[in-house]
């Protein structure tokens, strides 16, 4: 009964979305206030219905209701509760429902907290948001009904994919979707502004918190996915340039560009049409990712039996959702004129360079992701685009961006003093050079990656620190004055410093992990040992252990360095209830300097076990840095100026001290 109610709620949500998409839009065009005001209750009702449907599905998973088809396919009665719940979005239909839920959450939030928005803009924004909902609700109801029943219901389910039974992955999709789908509201704001024909500083300020919120979630989501891959896949990697990873990385790159270009709109009344374009494209890339993953157009068909109608449906959705706004853009954008002089050597000039590089990076990832497909379609040829391609194209674009990131914040709006900025960055340059020299000394004859990466990372780290210290004039003799200045520094400025600082740390981590990772592999019998980077891994024993829904062979390694035992590692090789393939559970000892990572493989049948160990310097800096970036996003978001009631169109001139 509950699943049917859930299904019915989706139909009602569709009805609400239809009302929300049409009446307020017409009302805004004709100036009919009550029609415009309908957007708010409609958005809230739509959210309520979708939320009900989501809870209904979650309930089916929690109670292992195997009469619901996707519960049977992706759950098992003996699974721990957390993985029963996360199974709700561990499949195509359920994750689509999560998608729509987040779409309506953002619509509902704007409806609730957008009291200060001009009524027309608000009505149009919510109407556009509802149009996206209509597309996805139709997609779900017509091709991917999450509540489809099985009759007779099987007695037991087929279990959630063991690789997904990991706390990191339980949280990864919701977080990622909050980011990815969150950009839908920015998109809606942009399209509404195009219809309105008006983009100004106030618009940029209204959009900024939504953009920041989505960016923060997206950053967190991508990193959770990366962390999960590192922990769960058992080969010590954290980024593979896989098409699906790229699908989430492209909106991040464009969204980051958007976050910065919107600042220029806000402060300098320029880059308007470009910012609108980025707003459309960020969500466009989210839709592209959805299409690539769910249509089966690039992933392997071996295990993902695809319903071709789904691919066609999403492609149609993508075409309308991106094609229509871009057509409108081609018509309207030329009329959006910015004002004011624009000097290349200024804060806004630096932000333009930032956008140029980020957009090119996104184009590079797009080209690399789609090239195999495009080549196959045009000539039938095959090609693989992997790490070496991105190392040769992406990194050369990232390095200047990192260098620029330290300089930009020193430059003033309108006219920046580049020479002065560079002078203040001398300490950063010295520190960076020192790090690069250490990198060369540590690995003679190695590639340029380590010294260049460390140079950029340390430069940005120290540069950001200097900028912050100068802002509050940390070396003032009066502590009280420092505190006053710290209090008066806007949260947004703290946010920027934190985010840049976090990225610097993550870059140092990526460089270390990519350049200095080492590994060793051997068949060991209990009592034998294997060494790597001066660490001795002794296999003490391998024993059987029983988990809640799996059996495992658990190895015990005694890790010692210079004769002292420093860690005990217990990697496992798990066999879950239903799924035939064993999974590996890596054991990791993490320290700020390096991770020790051990995996155990198949027994050789002669009393030995294949053992693989990795030494990954600085890898934990990646997660730590990303955490700081997320903290930066949240700090910026808490800035008073973005709160309810703060932005008012004419009064939008109060400038940050930034």
């Amino acid at each position, binding site marked *: 009964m509950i699943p049917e109610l859930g299904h019915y709620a989706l139909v009602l949500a569709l009805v609400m979305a239809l009302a929300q998409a049409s009446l307020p839009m017409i009302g805004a065009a004709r100036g009919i206030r009550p029609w415009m005001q309908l957007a708010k209750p409609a958005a809230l009702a739509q959210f309520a219905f979708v939320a009900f449907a989501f809870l209904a599905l979650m309930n089916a998973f929690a109670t292992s209701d195997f009469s619901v088809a996707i519960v049977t396919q992706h759950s098992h009665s003996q699974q721990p509760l957390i993985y029963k719940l996360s199974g709700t979005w561990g499949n195509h239909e359920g994750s689509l429902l999560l998608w729509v839920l987040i779409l309506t959450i953002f619509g509902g939030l704007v409806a609730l907290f957008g009291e200060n928005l001009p009524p027309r803009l608000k009505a149009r924004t919510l109407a556009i948001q509802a149009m996206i909902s209509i597309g996805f609700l139709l997609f779900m109801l017509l091709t991917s009904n999450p509540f489809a029943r099985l009759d007779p219901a099987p007695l037991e389910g087929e279990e959630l994919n063991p690789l997904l039974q990991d706390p990191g992955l339980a949280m990864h999709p919701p977080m990622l979707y909050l980011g990815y789908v969150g950009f839908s509201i920015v998109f809606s704001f942009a399209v509404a502004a195009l219809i309105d024909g008006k983009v100004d500083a106030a618009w940029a300020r209204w959009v900024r918190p939504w953009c920041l919120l989505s960016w923060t979630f997206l950053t967190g989501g991508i990193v959770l996915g990366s962390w999960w891959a590192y922990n769960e896949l058992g080969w010590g990697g954290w980024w593979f340039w896989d098409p699906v990873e790229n699908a989430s990385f492209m909106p991040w790159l464009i969204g980051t560009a958007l976050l910065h270009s919107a600042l220029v709109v806000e402060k300098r009344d320029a880059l308007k049409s470009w910012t609108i374009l980025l707003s459309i494209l960020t969500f466009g890339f989210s839709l592209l990712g959805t299409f690539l993953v769910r249509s089966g*157009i*690039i992933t392997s068909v*071996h295990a993902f039996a695809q319903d071709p109608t789904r691919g066609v449906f999403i*492609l149609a959705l993508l*075409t309308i959702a991106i094609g229509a706004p*871009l057509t409108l853009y*081609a018509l309207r954008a*030329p009329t959006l004129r910015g004002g004011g002089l624009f000097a290349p050597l200024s804060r806004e000039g630096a932000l333009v360079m930032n956008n140029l590089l980020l957009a090119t990076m996104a184009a590079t990832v797009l080209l690399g992701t789609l090239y195999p497909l495009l080549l196959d*379609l045009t000539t039938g040829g095959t090609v693989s685009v992997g790490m070496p391609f991105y190392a040769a194209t992406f990194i050369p674009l990232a390095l200047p961006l990192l260098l620029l990131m330290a300089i930009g914040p020193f430059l003033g709006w309108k006219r920046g003093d580049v020479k002065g900025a560079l002078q203040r960055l001398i300490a950063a340059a010295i520190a960076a050079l020192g790090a690069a020299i250490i990198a060369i000394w540590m690995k003679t004859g190695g590639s340029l990656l380590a010294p260049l990466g460390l140079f950029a990372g340390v430069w940005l780290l120290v540069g950001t620190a200097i900028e912050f210290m100068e802002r509050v004039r940390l070396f003032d003799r009066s502590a009280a004055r420092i505190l006053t200045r710290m209090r008066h520094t806007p949260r947004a400025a703290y946010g920027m410093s934190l985010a840049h600082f976090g990225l610097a740390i993550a870059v140092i981590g990526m460089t270390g992990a990519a350049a200095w990772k080492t590994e060793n592999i051997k068949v060991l019998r209990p009592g034998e040992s294997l060494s790597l980077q001066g660490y001795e891994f002794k296999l003490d024993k391998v024993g059987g252990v029983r988990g809640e829904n799996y059996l495992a062979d658990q190895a015990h390694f005694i890790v010692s360095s210079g004769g002292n035992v420093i860690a005990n590692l217990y990697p496992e090789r798990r066999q879950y209830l239903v799924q035939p393939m064993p999974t590996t559970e890596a054991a990791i000892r993490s320290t700020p300097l390096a991770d020790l990572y051990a995996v155990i493989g198949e027994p050789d049948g002669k009393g030995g076990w294949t053992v693989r160990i990795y030494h990954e310097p600085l890898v934990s800096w990646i997660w730590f840095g990303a955490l700081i970036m997320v903290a930066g996003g949240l700090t910026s978001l808490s800035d008073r100026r973005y709160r309810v009631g703060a932005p008012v169109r004419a009064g939008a001139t109060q400038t940050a001290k930034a």
Partner: protein
Amino acid sequence: MRRLLFLLPILIVAALVAAFWRGLDPARDPSALPSALVGKAAPAVDLPGLAEGAPRLNLAAFKGKLIAVNFFASWCLPCRAEHPFLKQLTAEFGVPVIGIAWKDKPAASRAFLAELGDPYAATGADENGRTGIDFGITGVPETFLVDQNGIVRYRLAGPVTPDGLQNALAPAITEARK
């Protein structure tokens, strides 16, 4: 000029959508890896015979005949499924099938053939799998059509099915016999 610039995004998107539309063709298998060997000489095969006391398997012995080279293994389930159609390939199209047991213990392969019947004109044991890599296989089963001059004409990855036999192999055989 300035107007054209604003048209650029929609034009790029239109081109991509057109490409995706073609890519969604249900007949297209995104994971299929076309063989680089088609149109080139088949690699030399010189393997121990599979049957006990059988002579070594050498493809050169079949020069002048259109043959099919089929890689199989006793541990491979689809190989079981395609078994009857291999017989059909010889019976209906007159193409002798050479079986190569890939990465399989000869005793196990022999038992497999004893159980299901032996559809092959000749068999060889590729225990270390090197001949398979010479042919560029990605797994078993795979079937290659090698013409009278020893040129690879067609490669079928995966099991031979009635559909594959009629719509893929049959035209390739006709083409090769021209």
